[in-house]
């Protein structure tokens, strides 16, 4: 990447209202709060925008995605996937919870002929997804730092060295959604029913079959 300015998109995807589904968004939130990246590196909170993210994928030469992905591994396991492997890992059963799966977004980008040259997926195995309004569980929260380290090392290999911020970053999402406030103001357990659909996630010990 010498000589030309980089064109890198660092994308966090997932729904931050759904417990560990917020992992990807929390990763870019942290990166944004801590570092100042050189021109040509963009951070984005992609939420569950699915197909609406395609133009951002098309524009990137290099795409780094943080997401909670169900690999069937122990909760909190980080799994790193690169390049051609990425669509496969985002498309199989029980992989992504977004209806227009990110695999479709990648396929659309490929169809239009504008596809990133390099892809890195930093995925975490979620511990809990059914807790609507909840936040990251401990095993997943513990992987925030390692996930950032992986992305930063990947960027460093490409000559991208972000500076530590002294100032306050312009936030990617409104402040009421920032991790600290989101968690502090969440309704108490007894006020908010926090259980999912037992047909999809049977819960042993609760009397559901």
């Amino acid at each position, binding site marked *: 990447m010498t000589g030309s300015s980089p064109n890198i998109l660092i994308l966090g995807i997932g*729904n*931050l*209202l*759904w417990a560990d589904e917020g992992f990807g968004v929390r990763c870019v939130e942290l990166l944004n709060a801590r570092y100042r990246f050189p021109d040509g590196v963009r951070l984005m*909170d992609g*939420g*569950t*925008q*699915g*197909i*609406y993210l*395609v*133009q951002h994928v098309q524009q990137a030469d290099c795409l780094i995605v943080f997401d909670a992905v169900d690999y069937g591994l122990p909760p909190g396991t980080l799994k790193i996937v690169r390049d051609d492997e990425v*669509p496969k890992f985002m*498309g*199989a*059963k*029980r*992989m*992504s*919870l*977004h*209806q*227009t*799966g990110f*695999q*479709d977004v*990648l*396929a*659309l980008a*490929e*169809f*239009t*002929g504008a596809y990133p040259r390099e892809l890195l997926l930093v995925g975490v195995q979620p511990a809990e*997804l*059914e807790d*609507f*309004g909840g936040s990251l569980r401990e095993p997943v929260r513990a992987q925030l730092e390692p996930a950032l380290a992986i992305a930063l090392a990947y960027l460093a290999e490409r000559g991208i060295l972000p500076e530590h911020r002294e100032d306050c970053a*312009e936030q990617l*999402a*409104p402040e*009421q*959604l920032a991790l600290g406030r989101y968690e502090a*103001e*969440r*309704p*108490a357990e007894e*006020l*908010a*029913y*926090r259980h*999912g*659909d*037992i*047909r*999809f*996630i*049977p819960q042993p010990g609760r009397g*559901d*079959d």
Partner: protein
Amino acid sequence: MSSLPNASQLDKSGRRIVVDPVTRIEGHMRCEVNVDANNVITNAVSTGTMWRGLEVILKGRDPRDAWAFVERICGVCTGTHALTSVRAVEDALGIQIPYNAHLIRNLMDKTLQVHDHIVHFYHLHALDWVNPVNALKADPKATSALQQAVSPAHAKSSPGYFRDVQTRLKKFVESGQLGLFANGYWDNPAYKLPPEADLMAVAHYLEALDLQKDIVKIHTIFGGKNPHPNYMVGGVACAINLDDVGAAGAPVNMVSLNFVLDRIHEAREFTKNVYLPDVLAVAGIYKDWLYGGGLAGHNLLSYGTFTKVPYDKSSDLLPAGAIVGGNWDEVLPVDVRDPQEIQEFVSHSWYTYADETKGLHPWDGVTEPKFELGPNTKGSRTNIQELDEAHKYSWIKAPRWRGHAMEVGPLARYIIAYASGREYVKEQVDRSLAAFNQSTGLALGLKQFLPSTLGRTLARALECELAVDSMLDDWQALVGNIKAGDRATANVEKWDPSTWPKEAKGVGINEAPRGALGHWIRIKDGKIENYQAIVPTTWNGTPRDHLGNIGAYEAALLNTRMERPDEPVEILRTLHSFDPCLACSTHVMSPDGQELTRVKVR
């Protein structure tokens, strides 16, 4: 127009077909139908298979914060929920927004509508009519001639252009990454377009993808960013300074306003030269597809939208109202505050009330889940093979207007606007029907044509045209008002909670892309006490009620003949014509959302 059957009259003796999940929608939905010996649908059961929990996470939070949470409940209608939420809070606290904010919100709302409608047609619905595999057989020259005949004003029409698209498609299909097109039934005789029309549509699929990325930039100008633009109680989250020349993050200035104008023009050209002609061309070839009207021929509801004069609902370009029993001569007034009008029932939903023969107005709404299956369910609790629709069978509640199940959405808005005598709408609808009759040689009347699957898809395209046309008026009004010296974008008089009453309640309404949307809020001691939303898919995807009234999805599927019952092309056509979005009407979570649709015939 046939009479609307009651649930008790439906014939469920024939083979049962289960489609789960219904694909190319937002959220998780399952559909079961019975077909008779001629493969005609005689009974339909639609169910939201996930639990919703939007309201509970807002309890106790600052009402000024709610918009950012509701913006995250769905990947599709982000801004619609945010706008409706700030309206609910403003209504509760008696806040009126400045004229600039009114116009900017209109522009953002219409941008969302245009974006959503175009993406829906090309990227979610087109594949119900268009066969991309068949497009490989097209002659690029003939495709070029077809394009020039369908839309002489559209620039991208050369044989070389279509040859390039075809080459790209071929490469994509041959790479084995069918990804996008994997769920199709491409050899089903229900697909009727000639290869050239299929190729033209694939080209427009790509053009629409380009267009959508530009139109949403309007959200970035006024909302600071996209995805997830910013909203604000009391106004809009951007400042205005025409003398400013700054770049990103700077106040809205003449450079950014001209940028917005260019995007509006692009979207107008696309809508008039590509989207509308495509819908009419598809309709002409699928002229037999006058199925799927269902409830649309009977009961329709709209809260009204695109208000021209602030706080004057009579100036809505698409007016509020209700039509009952197919009587287009009388548009009834709708009051979203009246506890007797809008009520939610749960007798067939997986929730419980003390008395399930009574409905609750959303201000008094209760969301207490109760998952239980009827005695005639086949399968187990965790692996349902066949639902028992005589019992509770959906995570969607059953909203009713004065006891009636109602269809909402672009078609409801259009029929109500037509029946209310809106001239712009009448011209559009009459023009479209004339074009349809001319190209097909038919002589259909409006009541035969509009309440149908095709009519629903057409109404969405017409609404897109109305939105882009009226965005020009909003833009002119905004620039005129700013030039006259008004720079106000927010009313912050009541920003501080110390100025609020101890208790307040309000309602925010909007017409989202999919239909009538309402957020009802109760505020106590500066915090959210209760928050209930009735979203469009709750209306259309409603289960039955205790009196056996059936909802829009179920009614629309009845009497449709399927070519091959194990390939639910026809079911998808009609369901997609509603643009279902179950992410907010039910739970978002879908562990097997990526799985191919299973279709089971029993």
